[in-house]
């Protein structure tokens, strides 16, 4: 027994080491003075300074931020509706179709999604003249579509956990479905909505392949810029950028965990 436990502990420790060594090395070498990323000379924050003066990176980051915020919000609305429909509406005609269409984007290779959406946009432009050209709008539509699948999974899991006694009680007392949704369902699934939005935002911020297909001249997102820079070689500036992004994400995830913890404590106090 003891021997097996130690085997499990050691393999888990090695697994976590494997997951974290690359991330730690990214952060450590972002403070390296030398331009040669992997040869340590001495501590310096100069790459952070260069990063903050790089207008190209800042512009791309702002573009990605806008796209991420808009598509995450749209994906949140559409994904929540899809989750609600699948979890609460019982049986309906297009249920199998919707179930398939909402789970397939999760595993669909990005090159296929990207190519198919680009061809759709080209065909739509030829047929109706909209969307005129490709760029900001087409990236938002593409990101909304694949992010809504992830939001739906997160919200559906929360809806499945929550019992619908309160919803049914409210209905019996004469509340309209819309009222029940706003007063009971929405507050209960709020933590899932927050994590769904954050997940969608991160996925949008991170996407290279789909954005490259559906983008046009003038719309360069941060991953597109990073990819073109990285192909030319490793630069410490990218390490600095990566460290800043990791810092933001860690704070965000810890804040979300704290909020979830607080709300579960509150719920226990109330009951």
């Amino acid at each position, binding site marked *: *027994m003891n021997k*097996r436990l130690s085997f*499990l502990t050691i*393999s*888990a420790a090695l*697994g*976590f080491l*494997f*997951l*974290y*060594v*690359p*991330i730690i090395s*990214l952060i450590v070498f972002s403070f390296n003075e030398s331009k040669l990323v*992997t040869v340590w000379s001495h501590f310096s924050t100069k790459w952070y300074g260069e990063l903050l003066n790089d207008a190209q990176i800042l512009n791309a980051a702002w573009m990605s931020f806008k796209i991420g915020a808009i598509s995450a919000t749209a994906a949140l609305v559409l994904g929540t*509706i899809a989750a609600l*429909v699948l979890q609460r*509406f019982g049986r*309906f005609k297009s249920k199998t179709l*919707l179930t398939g*269409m909402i789970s*397939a*984007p*999760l*595993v*669909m*290779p*990005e*090159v*296929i999604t990207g*190519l*198919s*959406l680009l*061809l*759709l946009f080209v*065909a739509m432009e*030829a047929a109706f003249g909209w969307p005129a050209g490709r760029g900001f709008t087409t990236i938002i*539509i*593409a990101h909304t*579509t694949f992010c*809504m699948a992830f939001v739906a999974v997160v919200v559906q899991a929360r809806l499945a956990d929550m019992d619908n006694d309160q919803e049914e009680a409210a209905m019996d007392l004469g509340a309209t*479905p819309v009222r029940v949704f706003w007063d009971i369902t929405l507050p209960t699934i709020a933590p899932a909505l927050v994590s769904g939005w954050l997940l969608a935002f991160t996925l949008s*911020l*991170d996407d*290279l*392949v789909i954005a490259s297909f559906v983008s046009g001249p003038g719309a360069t997102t941060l*991953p597109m810029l*990073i990819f073109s820079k*990285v*192909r030319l070689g*490793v630069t410490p500036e*990218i*390490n600095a*950028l*990566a460290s800043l*992004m*990791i810092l933001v*994400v860690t704070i965000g*995830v810890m804040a979300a*965990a704290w909020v979830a913890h607080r709300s579960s404590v509150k719920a226990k106090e109330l009951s």
Partner: protein
Amino acid sequence: MSGSTGISRFLPSGKTLVIAIPVIWLLVFFLIPFAVVFKLSLSEAAIARPPYLPIMEWDEEGILTFALNISNYFYLLEDDLYLSAYLQSMRIAFISTALCLLIAYPMSLAIARATPAKRNLLLMLVILPFWTSFLLRVYAWIGILKTNGLLNNSLMWLGLIDQPLAIMQTDIAVYIGVVYTYLPFMILPLYTSLVKQDGALLEAAADLGARPVAAFFSVTFPLSFPGMAAGCLLVFIPVVGEFVIPALLGGPDTLMIGKVLWSEFFSNRDWPVASAVATVMLVVLVVPIMLLRLAQQADEVQA
């Protein structure tokens, strides 16, 4: 009376409207695009904007003519490049799925058997890398694996090797990158199916005289099949079409179909051939995608 029929008539249509929102969005932006890809794979490339010829055209006499051509598919068969890229993608996806399973199983079991407080911390540690940029995590491996990178420098400093290992731009680098990025996708479903197993079953096995290893293979392991199946498919399907990892870590010999599609589209600007490549990939992946649905349903039933 009229009021109640008014409301009851309104209710189902309101419900239908709500259902219609996600259904129509996904039809237009997810399902129909595949039809467009298929249609384009049957047309001919041309130097034009957009760079292909229409399938349907009204000729001078006002007769609708169809110019379907399946030559793009013959082209995929004729040139060895495509077949070997498909095979190599499947091989890389298969081997990395197996490696992910080997690494993820003990990790998931260790997390599932930890105390509840520790369990949440460990789970968060699994999920956290997933939230940080995928592109940048792949980039981190370039710094580790390249000739004068972290790994080679450390091994040489330790005196284990005198010559730097050539890992970067080989298939080994691709395997490392794939296993690294897709590991959380294997751990999470596996953990979910392991943690909900009834501990009493293991106790019963122990009472009946089974040693821990025997109890593991006769109880824990078979009960985790749905989680394993879901995890394997969640890794296998997207890896077949992976582009970023072979582009950044692989070398010129690493032929993966996602990379081929990318260069057909962006470098050769041959949209019809890129569409044919995508159509074939989709056909290859339909079966695994349907299996994934089955595995997830089996998991729900077990829960």
